[in-house]
């Protein structure tokens, strides 16, 4: 970032036209106009971290309740997949490190990726960059501006999250280190996004590649810690470096320097690639396509528009199935290794079978929440197509609004269900190969029971895009609420009626003796309500312009 200073030159001197000329004014303007887009990421990460230290003494006041928490976390490896290992849950800082490190870094990385892509690729797509490039602006200035925005944003995120958490009662060193891991994760993915912005030929490809990288590394980290993978696996995954800092249980600072080095290397690669490519082109250039078209119906158009993500998500759900399935096969070992779990079992509070089926329910809820993401994306695609005027020519043909919308809704619900079932089948198949008392049929049945909850989450986005498209981001509310309540809700000690807001809370354990399906009936009614709102809204409203 220090290079931005070189862009300043005395007003009377002739500008030399350097590689980075014009970065400073561009960065100032960008920060003023797009800086506020970083605010939500900063707010959510801060909330996540600060809330941990606030609620901890209140929800877990006694030593006994803290041990109970440790046992609960240890007995559900599905939690470890998301949060990583719990090193020390007996202090507020340790609890915060476990609960916020992985997710806070994830949020910081997402914010950084979107900031970089927005300032580079998305501008090239919209033609805004062409205007800028024709001005007095060096070749590398736009990329540097995008990267600087993300670097500054990540830094602010880390600092704000740490300071607010300290004010709420967090310990200085552990909290600062935790904030530093947020910043470092944001920086590394600034580098990743800067590279993918040079590889993909449009914003969507570039951000999908960067977010995909983040997702894969995130899942691999959780997996590696959950199955106690060999130590070297921690050092090949940059996200694991953050976990290895162990805030509140060791406070190791040096892994952060690895992150800084990686960031610099990635940025160097990005600038090299950028200098070599043509404006508006990617490293991968498309060849000529077919002169005639086969996609001639609203349904095939919907599939075509979402083809790339549909394939990517199919692969992702297979991978998710493998990861979770593999985890399931080793569940009895994991329980056996955990003294807290052994205590619970010895006290006769629960049986190994019950623990296993609770684990299967949690894991499939998690799969369901993840599988709802592509569904929401498909619905938001309807909106983004609308805002770039590509729905207008379609609706000017003999395709009715209802039909156009229905095809997308069908695809969104269908794809999400398919992904749950695919992941469920793989998990079931892997679980069936191990002797843990769970067969393919059990897991598949549980997956089927999860599908209605997924529909409810997707239906929220159907309603939003149909009736209130101006606030399209609200379409994510279903995913967000389900995620927070299903995974974080129990650590807050929330009441049942609050947890019940998440549709996944109503998914019954189908391996139980008598399965109660009324919950699913209720959430399906809600689903139908959301769908109706969406369809009526889309039929009645003006199309965007």
């Amino acid at each position, binding site marked *: 970032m220090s290079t931005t200073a070189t862009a300043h030159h005395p007003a009377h001197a002739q500008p030399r036209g350097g590689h980075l000329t014009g970065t400073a004014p561009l960065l100032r303007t960008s920060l003023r106009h797009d800086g506020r887009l970083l605010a939500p990421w900063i707010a959510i990460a801060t909330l996540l971290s600060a809330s941990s230290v606030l609620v901890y003494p209140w929800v877990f006041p006694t030593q006994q309740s803290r041990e109970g928490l440790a046992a609960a976390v240890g007995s559900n490896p599905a939690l470890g997949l998301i949060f990583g290992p719990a090193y020390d849950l007996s202090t507020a800082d340790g609890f915060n490190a476990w609960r916020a490190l992985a997710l806070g870094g994830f949020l910081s990385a997402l914010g950084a990726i979107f900031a970089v892509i927005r300032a580079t690729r998305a501008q090239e797509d919209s033609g805004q960059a062409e205007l800028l490039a024709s001005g007095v602006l060096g070749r590398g200035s736009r990329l540097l501006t995008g990267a600087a925005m993300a670097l500054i944003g990540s830094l602010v995120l880390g600092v704000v999250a740490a300071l607010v958490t300290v004010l709420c009662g967090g310990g200085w060193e552990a909290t600062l280190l935790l904030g530093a891991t947020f910043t470092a994760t944001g920086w590394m993915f600034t580098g990743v996004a800067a590279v993918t912005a040079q590889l993909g030929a449009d914003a969507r490809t570039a951000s999908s590649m960067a977010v995909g990288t983040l997702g894969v590394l995130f899942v691999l980290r959780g997996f590696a810690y959950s199955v106690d993978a060999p130590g070297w696996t921690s050092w090949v995954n940059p996200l694991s470096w953050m976990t290895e800092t162990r805030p509140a249980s060791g406070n190791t600072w040096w892994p952060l320097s690895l992150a800084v080095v990686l960031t610099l290397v990635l940025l160097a690669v990005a600038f090299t690639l950028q200098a070599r490519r043509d404006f508006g082109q990617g490293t991968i250039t498309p060849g000529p396509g077919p002169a005639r078209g086969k996609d*001639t119906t609203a349904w095939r158009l919907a599939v075509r528009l979402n083809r790339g993500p549909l394939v990517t998500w199919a692969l992702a759900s297979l991978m998710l199935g493998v990861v979770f399935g593999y985890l399931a096969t080793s569940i009895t070992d994991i329980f056996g290794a955990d003294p807290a779990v052994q205590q619970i079992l010895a006290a006769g509070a629960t049986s190994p079978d019950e623990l296993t089926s609770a684990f299967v329910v949690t894991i499939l809820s998690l799969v369901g929440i993840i599988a709802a993401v592509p569904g929401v994306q498909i619905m938001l695609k309807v909106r983004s197509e609308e805002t770039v005027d590509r729905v207008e020519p379609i609706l000017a043909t003999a395709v009715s609004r209802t039909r156009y919308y229905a095809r997308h809704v069908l695809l969104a619900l269908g794809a999400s269900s398919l992904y749950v079932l695919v992941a469920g089948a793989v998990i079931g198949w892997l679980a069936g190969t191990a002797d843990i008392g769970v067969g393919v049929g059990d897991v598949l049945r549980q997956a089927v029971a999860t599908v209605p909850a997924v529909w409810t989450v997707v239906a929220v986005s159907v309603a939003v895009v149909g009736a209130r498209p101006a606030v399209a981001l609200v379409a994510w509310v279903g995913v967000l609420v389900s995620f927070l309540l299903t995974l974080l809700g129990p650590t807050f000690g929330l009441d049942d009626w609050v947890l019940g807001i998440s549709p996944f809370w109503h998914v019954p354990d189908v391996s139980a003796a008598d399965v109660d399906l009324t919950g699913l009936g209720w959430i399906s009614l809600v689903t139908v309500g959301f769908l109706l709102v969406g369809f009526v809204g889309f039929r009645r409203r003006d199309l965007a312009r």
Partner: protein
Amino acid sequence: MSGSDPVIEVVGLTKSYGRFPALRGLDLQVERGQVHGFLGPNGAGKSTTIRVLLGLLKADGGTVRMLGQDPWSDVVALHRRLAYVPGDVSLWPGMTGGEAIDLLGSMRGGLDETRRTDLVERFELDPTKRGRQYSKGNRQKVAIVAALASDVELLILDEPTSGLDPLMEAVFQEVISEAGQRGATVLLSSHIMAEVETLADRLSIIREGRIVQTGTLKELRGDVRTTVRAVLERAPAIDELSSLHDVHLDGDRLTATVESTRIGEAMTLLTGYGLVSLTVEPPSLESLFLRLYEDEQASAPTGTTTSGETGTAP
């Protein structure tokens, strides 16, 4: 033109975006077989009108009938019989032009294969390029081919030639006249006066959400005067030229206007001074348009002139 078979019939149409009134009681009538020019400055409400006609926007008030049907409720039946070219074509980035033509064509209910081939050839369109690779003009061509390859009764064209080069502009004019000969009705919104002048049978001029003038080009020209430019052997005195208007004399060079009915009289007058060169220009649509707007602007007391193309979105 019988005058009793309207394809588009709009009466008292109103539409607001939030508190901004885009259309304030618009009346528009297009007869079968007409090529109807739809003129107006940016922000006058042309695109809003067209989007109401297509059922993309819901009218706040007034009645709209197209081909005897309601554009909001009879969408599917109506859209089988019409085709649309937007002024700013946005194509799917990964889809080729050829695929986009076939998609739009078959969604409308099929397209005429021979005409499709013919149009692709005449517009020199490479249908194997992808949406993101096309220039603005080429995107426009894709939309034009897609619309004209279907056999429809009504063509709605919203500034269809923006971005086309003059050669392609000529091809476009040819193709639209052919569509007219086939009996298609055309609503042509445009900024290019020469295009409208060549193609349109009738014109409607919109301003601030209302039609301010409508008629044939000849009717609209009405009392607008012909421009005369001449180089003379002897310079006349100003007061000898009382039958001419707007006289400008620069030595032996004369520029003036004259009523269309008195051109002969003016010629006789000027011949007396010894003509070296002479051009007589009938009133162009452009001058008509400018004159109309200058007049309106001069008489418009409030400062509510123009804003964005269709105003602010709600």
